[in-house]
């Protein structure tokens, strides 16, 4: 047995060495995210109290120079087409009440500023947290007399991106003192550390324990959500947060929860909190 333990020690030593030798390549890149030479983004921030990592880092730092460059230029950023589409929807009358979003909220640049940095919020009516997608649907049904968008359908992604984009550059900060937000945070944390699937991995397995390292060609980030909906180059479209949650869980070879289910709403509250202090990047550009 002693021999085994020694060998284990050697093996762990080797692990340490091999990480040390690659860590120069694997570090999140030291660079500044400035959009259109104007908006200085907070892409690294001191972690909030109780966060397991010392610093929260935007996924932007983990991407290739080409991908990073695209996000710095709103003309190049293909996610901005979705934002423009969202602006059209904002101004389009829909539903039995003959209203558009703009009918009540006027100019989104003013009325929606800060919204993307503070959601999910507590919703008294449902006694649950509500995200921007949920708030849009609530407005459509209760105020516009229109149908709720189905997950990722209709104008859900572009309108969400447009609303979040009004907070571009503003630091994410949730108010966990509202309603029962804290217990949803707790539940989200449990989901974050729950190992799922045949591969037996949790969110933390990759994004906390191994961020900064490569899985094949993929540079693992901290999995912060400040840039959603995010333009993913390999999928050539805006990808919603709950779509990404489901994709990650699916990749552990597990059954995955429904979009906007209690499980994923808790996870949205918790992962949004983990990115506290980072600028809203919507629409971020990723690989």
């Amino acid at each position: 047995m002693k021999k085994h333990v020694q060998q284990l020690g050697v093996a762990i030593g080797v692990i340490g060495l091999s990480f040390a030798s690659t860590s120069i390549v694997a570090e999140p890149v030291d660079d500044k995210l400035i959009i259109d030479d104007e908006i200085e983004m907070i892409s690294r921030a001191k972690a909030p109290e109780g966060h397991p990592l010392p610093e929260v880092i935007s996924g932007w730092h983990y991407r290739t120079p080409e991908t990073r460059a695209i996000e710095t230029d709103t003309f190049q950023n293909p996610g901005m087409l979705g934002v423009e589409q969202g602006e059209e929807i904002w101004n389009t009358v829909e539903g039995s009440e003959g209203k558009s979003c703009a009918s009540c909220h006027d100019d989104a640049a003013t009325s929606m500023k800060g919204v993307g940095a503070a959601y999910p919020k507590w919703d008294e009516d449902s006694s649950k947290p509500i995200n921007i997608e949920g708030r849009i649907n609530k407005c459509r049904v209760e105020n516009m007399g229109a149908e709720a968008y189905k997950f990722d359908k209709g104008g859900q992604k572009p309108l969400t991106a447009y609303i979040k984009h009004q907070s571009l550059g503003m630091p994410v900060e949730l108010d966990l003192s509202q309603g029962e937000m804290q217990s949803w945070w707790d539940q989200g944390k449990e989901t974050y550390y729950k190992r799922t699937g045949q591969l037996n991995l949790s969110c933390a397995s990759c994004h906390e324990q191994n961020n900064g390292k490569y899985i094949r060609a993929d540079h693992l980030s901290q999995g912060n959500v400040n840039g959603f909906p995010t333009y993913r180059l390999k999928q050539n479209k805006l990808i919603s947060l709950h779509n990404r949650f489901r994709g990650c869980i699916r990749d552990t070879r597990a059954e995955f929860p429904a979009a906007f289910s209690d499980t994923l709403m808790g996870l949205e509250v918790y992962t949004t909190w983990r990115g506290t202090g980072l600028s809203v990047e919507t629409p971020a550009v990723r690989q």
Partner: protein
Amino acid sequence: MKTITNALSLVCVGLLASTTVLAADVAPNDVKFDGLSVNESLTGAAGDPDSGRKIFSNRKQGNCLACHANSDMNDQLFHGEVGPSLDGVAGRWQEPQLRTILVNAKAVFTEQTVMPGFYTLEVGADVREDLIGKTILSAQQVEDLVAYLMTLK
């Protein structure tokens, strides 16, 4: 000597491949752990290192390269770095220990490791329905990988 052994195991596998007697495999729940060792082959025979080499890089099988660098595969781009490099792994571990790590890495590295267990039913929650009761690799594939890893000296 090494060549003779390799050649011998190749012959064995040639025989096995044509017969593939699954009933002779040790079932995942019946694997005998002796400390950090699983001493006996899961198939009762030696694995095929050439097949193991393919399983190592195949993304739908072992996909070991996703997390481990391996100089023997320098023809392939993008070696992972989540786990240690496997260069010289046969000099650091004995065959029964490598088998244990492949079967269920948590038996050696504790629950902390992110390495999946490739021949265990001790898996995560909410396993995809069609994969319930199934292991990531077959007994034969594990033995092939063991044989391959033992060539990395």
